[in-house]
């Protein structure tokens, strides 16, 4: 999107021949621009840039909660926090849990989003906006609130989900109390809450798929699945890349779901990287927490880069 905008910029600059504007005008323009930028920049420096750098510094120190008032008493300990993280069995468990959540949750969310988008785009012609609204609604609601509701829905004895499963003769598991079922339960809820965003973006992307191509292929005898596989999907690749990257970035940081629903349990089966970092912060281990947060950051950056590569190369 920024490349497009940059293109517009240069086009405009070329229209006005350089040097036509007087220097005084230019200076006024520059001053006004900085005046307009100033409030944002101040807040941004103090509350974003500084903490990002400070966090990096903290991650190589042994800062603890009690050092809050005496910042000069902390020692620089190099990469100790990072090596400690890599041998911290509880953190590694959190990494595995997060990987499970992402590897199962992202594809599931994408498939739900794409199925809903395709069905709404070509399959039906009436009530489209009603369905769209229904599917999108969970996205705008508080994760904490829906987690509280799902905790109740997932209750082993009187939850709605096990009641419905009981109708078809399935004895539902103790979702949040069984280490084998706790993560699937969280993934189910996260996919339910988030697929609406992907659906909206897919719907926008599907506008670019020419319907004539579908009709021509249909005349040649291509089935609906073949047309989806060989026409829609390839043309949707940029959108697919975008949705999978943003969904993955979100899922790598999941926090509220286990915080409310399982508190990381049972048997640490749902402790996420963010939840573990928050706990270390809660214990007062600020330096260690900062290093864990940077590990999350690096993972997000690497995964984003890899995904860009993987989906680009197939073109």
């Amino acid at each position, binding site marked *: 999107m920024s490349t497009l905008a940059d293109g517009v910029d240069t086009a405009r600059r070329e229209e006005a021949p350089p040097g036509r504007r007087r220097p005084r005008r230019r200076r006024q323009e520059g001053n006004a621009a900085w005046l307009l930028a100033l409030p944002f920049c101040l807040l941004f420096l103090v509350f974003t840039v500084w903490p990002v750098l400070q966090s990096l510094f903290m991650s190589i120190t042994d800062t603890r909660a009690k050092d809050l008032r005496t910042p000069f008493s902390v020692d620089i300990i190099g990469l100790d926090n990072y090596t400690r993280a890599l041998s911290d069995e509880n953190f590694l468990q959190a990494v595995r849990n997060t990987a499970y959540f992402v590897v199962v949750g992202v594809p599931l969310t994408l498939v739900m989003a794409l199925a809903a988008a395709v069905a*709404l785009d070509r399959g039906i012609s009436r009530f489209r906006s009603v369905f769209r609204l229904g599917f999108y609604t969970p996205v705008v609601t508080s994760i904490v609130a829906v987690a509280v509701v799902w905790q109740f829905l997932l209750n082993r004895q009187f939850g709605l989900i096990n009641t419905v499963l009981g109708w078809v003769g399935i004895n539902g598991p103790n979702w949040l109390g069984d280490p084998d079922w706790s993560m699937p339960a969280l993934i189910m809820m996260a996919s339910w809450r988030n697929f609406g965003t992907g659906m909206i973006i897919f719907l926008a992307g599907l506008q670019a798929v020419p319907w004539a191509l579908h009709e021509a292929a249909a005349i040649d005898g291509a089935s609906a699945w073949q047309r989806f596989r060989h026409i829609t999907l390839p043309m949707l690749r940029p959108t697919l890349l975008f949705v999978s990257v943003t969904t993955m970035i979100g899922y790598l940081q999941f926090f509220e779901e286990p915080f409310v629903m399982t508190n990381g349990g049972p048997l640490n089966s749902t402790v996420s990287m963010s939840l573990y970092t928050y706990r270390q912060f809660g214990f007062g281990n600020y330096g260690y927490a900062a290093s864990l947060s940077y590990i999350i950051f690096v993972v997000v950056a690497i995964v984003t880069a890899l995904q860009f590569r993987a989906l680009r190369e197939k073109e």
Partner: protein
Amino acid sequence: MNRSTSGKWWLYGLLSIAVVIVSAPFLWMVVGSFKTTPELRRNPPTWLPEHATLDNYTQLFARLDFGTYFFNSTVVAVVVTAGNLLFCSMLGYALAMLDFRGKKALFGVVMATLLIPGVVTFVPLFVLVANAGLVDTLPGLMLPFLAAPFGVFLMRQFILGLPRDLLDAGRVDGAGELRIFARIFLPLCGPALATLGILTFLGSWNNFLWPLVVAQTEDTYTLPVALALYSKGQNSTNYGLLLAGATVVVMPVLLVFLAFQRRVIEGIATTGIK
């Protein structure tokens, strides 16, 4: 497509079932909030409340002070939204229409931070806010969110699409640069400001990690913090109370969203970011 409207009845059926499944948690939440906890614990569950009661809501507001949390959530969301509308449109305009030294670098830095997870900044932010004496205060909850990169991106993209001739016309008429922004361009930004306003309000209302860290007494709890903590404390099995609490958290944003849904959905489709 005549063929598709008549022949796809099964798809309508399937989508209708899907919508019911997707909305079921909300319906169950609202219906359940009028039931008593013993009724909620019954197996098999009752569909409609046997003795519909407002007890859960009276308890929330009388015993648990949800009125205060509601007030805190509202104040924080309103101030954060106002800040973003103002500061992001100012910088967005400068980046889209004006030429100045360091413009490219500034835009690059602001955009780069879009990728940074919130968990990266919260430890030093907490230290910063603690040293400023703002822990457990409403300003402490708001300040870090007053100027978010996402808003700059959205406003810049929108203003790039406005006619540049307006700028030149304003200058020819002798209007100052700030006046051109405030009187000519800002009034044209209505749609973008509406989208940004709603998305920011929803984001602030639902925000959790930062308020959880900064709000340490009940005086400054926001709704999600209060609900999360009550769901883990002594009320953790008081399902009626928790469902009523969830309803109080969800309903305002649901109404805001339903009122402005077209804007929200268009905003997401064009910027691609929630």
